């Protein structure tokens, strides 16, 4: 199991007990009075069979508070995400903090900062880098490079999952869309892993059929799910942080009820993203301070319910480049997510809202993750670390500590060493070509790609994945979701990348 980072002190609580209670009761009231729109017949029947008030014409379900609280209690406080390499399993929950590979739909050219669909080789290289990075604990081959050259959109998630499984042995994130979960479950079963699929809620108060159907499929297959409670505040939810939180918590509660009615004790984490809207442009402000605040509030509410939390704050920036804005928006968001009790932080590699991903950024972000992890681990206080005898022994100047056994024993444990930060003295920096962190990260990427060899799938595993992909291709082609023109291009792309 990957240990990840342990937050060794109390989390940052920003709500008082009374404020927490007000949000909790408000959310219960919303679910009982207004309820959720659920566009899924089987889910509606399940709610109706369990004492919810269901209007089948309006597709509306009103949930009694007692049922909500019972189902919240049934959600496990932690669960295991199984990796291809069992040494890399994750135990999600409690005060453990893991970092997850970030997302961004397109590849970005680091000279022009223009984006374009990625090639299979670029996806593979990004996965190899993610596999090598010590602070990427959960891989996410799916949600970066959702635009792939020569791959029909309907096959991208499965091709990305296959690439993720081939080039990383870490546990994998997933999603759902147009039945692709059927094939993803088959892949997971073939490799003896589970996935961590995220399922959308449409705010306000709506679960569409695709997400509900995927929930049934995953929960019944024993796979933990990660429903999302997301909105742009002022558009898809109230603009006040308290109102947005009340709406967000009511959607969390609705998912807890659905999940626990499908299978009591089924594991679930919540991904959340309550961010303000740019009132001029209409787009979400991913780097906003308020996003970090709602992230902290939701982390606190999820701790109350003992449901593992996956905060979105810090996962991306609106900057189009790998620059100062990307650095501060992502770092501050992630740091506050970690301090306030997030368990799975979506992080390394993405920027430009959700548009770009680059492995060089994942390398830079990995240093930030290490920095945050060091902060979380806090301070060890023992006789040895207090070093009182040593302080007395060394005494005043000319005494120093560089030559002591204590320094040799402890410095690596106590001090975090970033891999690609510019730490050089100024004259050395001038002589060595004025290299900044971005340049150093590019060099580290080259080094990783020449030296890191992820453990391959066994021949039988590879065959199983390829067979499942073939079935999926036939399935989507027969459903008319891959045109003949796209099919021809797709087949050529596969031949060229083989």
């Amino acid at each position, binding site marked *: 199991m990957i240990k990840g980072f342990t937050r060794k002190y109390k989390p940052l609580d920003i709500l008082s007990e009374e404020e927490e209670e007000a949000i909790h009761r408000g959310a219960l009231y919303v679910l009982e009075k207004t309820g959720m729109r659920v*566009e899924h017949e089987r889910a509606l029947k399940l709610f109706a069979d369990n004492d919810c008030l269901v209007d089948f014409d309006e597709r509306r379900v009103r949930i009694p508070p007692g049922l909500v609280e019972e189902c919240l209690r049934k959600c496990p406080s932690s669960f295991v995400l199984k990796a291809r390499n069992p040494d890399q399993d994750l135990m999600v929950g409690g005060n453990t903090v893991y970092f997850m590979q970030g997302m961004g*739909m397109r590849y970005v050219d680091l000279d022009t900062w223009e984006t374009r669909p990625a090639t299979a080789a670029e996806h593979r290289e990004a996965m190899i880098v993610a596999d090598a990075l010590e602070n990427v604990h959960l891989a996410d081959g799916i949600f970066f490079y*959702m*635009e792939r050259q020569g791959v*029909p*959109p*309907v096959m*991208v*998630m499965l091709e990305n999952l296959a690439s993720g499984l081939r080039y990383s042995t870490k546990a994998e994130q997933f999603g759902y*869309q*147009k039945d692709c979960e059927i094939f993803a479950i088959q892949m997971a079963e073939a490799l003896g892993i589970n996935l961590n699929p995220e399922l*959308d809620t*449409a705010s306000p108060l*709506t679960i*569409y059929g*695709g997400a509900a159907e995927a929930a049934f499929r995953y929960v019944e297959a024993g796979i933990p799910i990660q429903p999302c409670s997301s909105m*742009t505040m*002022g*558009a*898809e939810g109230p*603009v006040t942080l308290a109102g947005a939180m009340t709406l967000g918590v009511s959607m969390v509660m609705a998912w807890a009820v659905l999940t626990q009615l499908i299978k009591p004790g089924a594991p679930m984490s919540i991904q959340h993203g309550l961010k303000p*809207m740019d*009132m*001029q*442009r*209409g787009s979400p402000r991913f780097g906003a301070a308020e996003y970090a605040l709602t992230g902290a509030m939701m982390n606190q509410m999820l701790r109350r319910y003992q449901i593992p939390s996956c905060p979105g704050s810090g996962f991306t920036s609106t900057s189009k480049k790998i620059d100062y804005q990307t650095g501060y928006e992502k770092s501050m968001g992630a740091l506050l997510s970690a301090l306030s009790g997030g368990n799975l932080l979506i992080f390394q590699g993405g920027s430009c*809202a*959700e*548009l770009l991903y680059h492995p060089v950024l994942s390398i830079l972000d990995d240093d930030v993750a290490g920095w945050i992890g060091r902060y979380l681990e806090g301070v060890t206080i023992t006789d040895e670390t207090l070093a009182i005898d040593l302080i007395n022994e060394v005494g005043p100047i000319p005494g120093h500590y560089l030559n002591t056994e204590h320094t040799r024993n402890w410095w690596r444990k106590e001090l975090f060493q970033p891999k690609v930060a510019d730490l050089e003295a100024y004259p050395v920096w001038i002589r060595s070509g004025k290299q900044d962190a971005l340049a150093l990260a590019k060099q580290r990427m080259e080094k990783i790609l020449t030296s890191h060899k992820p453990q391959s799938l066994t021949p039988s595993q590879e065959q199983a994945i390829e067979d499942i992909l073939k079935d999926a291709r036939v399935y989507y082609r027969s459903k*008319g*979701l891959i*045109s003949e023109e796209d099919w021809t291009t797709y087949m050529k792309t596969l031949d060229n990348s083989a």
Partner: protein
Amino acid sequence: MQDIILESLSRAIKDYDKAAAVRWVTAAADNQIDPLRVMESLTAAIREVGDAFGAGECFLPELVSAADAMQAALPIVEEQLRSIGAKRESIGKVVAGTVAGDIHNIGKSMLCTLLVADGFEVVDLGTDVPVERFVEAVRDHEPDILAMSALLTITASEQKLVIEALQAAGLRQIVKVIVGGGAISEEFANKIGADGYSPTAPGGVRLCRKLAG
């Protein structure tokens, strides 16, 4: 009296006051004010708010609220127009929706609002709209423009299916098709045979003006 009513109607739009907009447009009807003049007042008021938005003097919450107030008043004045055998003068008619499998509403709703503020007649089909509903809506409403939104790469291909279905139904020639959303690029729009693409809602309005003109 007429001037007071029309001025109050205009003020109601600019104050985002739906109830007052309905009240004053009803008063205009009761006082037999020419519905064409009422419509002019409404249009001038919403355009003023739209211009302020364009100049960065007001923001989306104000613009959307003003457009909502206008839409609350519109049915009453349209009924009046019909009764005298006249029609609302609009720049054009747009049917808009987010494609099947895609639940993202805001971008499409912004476009609809900005189009209304610009003088277009808009039919909003909502989100997660299946191919057949787009085709039916084009058949029923005979719009100048069909606008489709998709935020996800995987749902973007639905736009292509809609265009193919319009062709199969013999409706492609009567309507211009535009596409937008996070997953859409100009290259993709060209590839699926759309007539236009815009990455933003204000750009979508400019595109609609160009295509409807």
